[in-house]
């Protein structure tokens, strides 16, 4: 079969909603796009552990501490499935992680913002996990089988996280004026970065068209961003928090909320490495890897020794 014929058959499968599996033929660019997207997602889970992990030792009560530990542990688990999904495409976990450390691979920019107060933890759960879910629910039907299946499990846990985050903010917003102010401050800092999580606007997005055709993506960045805003406004109202956008208002004709233009300059600055915590996040990951090298070596050496003993 010629390359062109294979491509036609591949697209037919996609059009008929048949999942692509690891051993199936796929265009190189499809494979590369998936490796890029899934590894970026995996890195986001892992780097995302840092701002939240930073609050585990300071969580205000035992229940919150347990919930936060469980959440961060789920994220490590998500990272594991996703690195495994990348491995089904022929790229090892080691290689994928190295790409993160050299700066070749990206992760969600939201994690380059600091988690400064306890309210940030609830807000990350509500807005950041909420935005992630918008993306991820769509990915449960993505065309690549292992990715779609990983996403189903991940989505269940993420929606749990979002509810927990929201529930923790309800507590703050019904608490003392100090607690309410803490929640509003977190909202002010996280709202715009959360909207940026959907990526560049459709006009600027370089990968969108082909990804939609291959059904890797089901909705465009702007569509998902709009759904997120539409879903979140009412939730903010219930909390009694003000969304920091004077232009946010319901547009009857569109059937959607209008909102201000995102500060794209800030978006690109953070993507390029100039966010408040880019250096620290990457340094923490590199340090964990370097300081853990002897542990991994020990495990490998030990496994070899035992295998030799067995065969002897």
């Amino acid at each position, binding site marked *: 079969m010629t390359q062109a014929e294979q491509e036609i058959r591949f697209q037919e499968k996609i059009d008929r909603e048949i999942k692509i599996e690891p051993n199936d033929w796929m265009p190189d660019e499809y494979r590369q796009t998936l490796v890029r997207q899934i590894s970026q997602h995996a890195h986001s889970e*892992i780097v995302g*552990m*840092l701002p939240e*992990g930073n609050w*585990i*030792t*300071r*969580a*205000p*009560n*035992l*229940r*919150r*501490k*347990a919930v936060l*530990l*469980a959440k*961060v*542990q789920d994220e*490590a*688990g998500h*990272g*594991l499935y996703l*690195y495994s999904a990348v491995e089904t495409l022929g790229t090892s976990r080691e290689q994928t992680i190295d790409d993160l450390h050299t700066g070749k691979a990206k992760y969600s920019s939201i994690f380059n913002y600091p988690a400064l107060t*306890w309210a940030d933890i609830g807000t990350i759960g509500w807005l950041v996990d909420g935005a992630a879910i918008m993306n991820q629910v769509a990915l449960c039907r993505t065309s690549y089988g292992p990715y779609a299946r990983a996403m189903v499990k991940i989505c269940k846990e993420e929606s749990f996280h979002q509810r927990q985050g929201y529930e*923790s903010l309800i*507590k*703050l917003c019904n*608490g*003392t004026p*100090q*607690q309410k102010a803490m929640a509003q401050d977190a909202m002010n800092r996280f709202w715009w970065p959360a909207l940026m999580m959907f990526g560049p606007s459709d006009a600027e997005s370089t990968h969108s068209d082909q990804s939609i055709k291959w059904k890797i993506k089901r909705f465009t960045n702007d569509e998902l961003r709009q759904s997120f805003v539409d879903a979140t406004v009412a939730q903010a109202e219930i909390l009694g928090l003000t969304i920091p956008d004077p232009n946010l208002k319901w547009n009857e004709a569109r059937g959607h909320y209008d909102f201000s233009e995102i500060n794209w300059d800030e978006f690109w600055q953070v993507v390029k490495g100039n966010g408040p915590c880019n250096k620290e996040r990457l340094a*923490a990951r590199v*340090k*964990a*890897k370097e*300081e*853990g*090298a*002897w*542990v*991994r*070596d*020990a*495990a490998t*050496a*030990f496994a070899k*020794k035992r295998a030799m003993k067995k065969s002897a």
Partner: protein
Amino acid sequence: MQETALFEYVLRLSDDSLILAQRLGEWCGHGPILEEDIALTNISLDLIGQAISLYDFAAELEGKGRNHDQLAYLRYENEYKNVLLVEQPNGDFAMTLLRQFFFDAFRLPLYEALMQSPVAQLAAIAAKSVKETRYHLKHSSEWVIRMGDGTEESHERAQAAIDHLWRYTSELFYEDTHDHTLQAAGQVPTMAAIQTKWNATVTSILQEATLEIPKNNWKFDGGREGRHSEHMGYLLSDLQYMQRAYPNMEW
């Protein structure tokens, strides 16, 4: 008097769990491999769960209307009764895993014995916790063996951790009048019985790991009486930060 003794006894168990959980939580996001990030946070989570049940029981015994959070968060340093071992800093992965191993090897036989306690609530908590602890011990033992019998570097690091932590191990078997009261009533095991089992586990695992038990028998204690190491104040500063900075608020 028995109530007071039991309160003290349960508080010690709770504090051991809480303080070790607090230390393990510090590893989150910094583990040598992703699987260990998950394992260490999971153990931390189990220990928090145990601490909640134990503090609830302690609060009930005390009968002063305190809840588990008030016990966990709002005492002064000298009121915490955990052993010095669990408050020691994480150090490298070898230090953390050896600390864990020494603790797990103590906790498992203790919980096994407490399952037989006529104090129903204590027996129930022990029965629930014993399953988790069996896992923790399996995990830490496997790493001790892997590190000891891995590379030259891992062997050295594991041995250094043992040499450093050994001085804190005898305090695990600390007893005072509270223990004696409860032992006389047949409610808790003697520490000598637990120590025999601990010795057997530690000897066999270290042997398999090609690691040595230190000759230096210098012993440290004080934790059970509320005299801690310098590390404890910093640990509590983090733990108590929110409760101290924002008193009397619900989270």
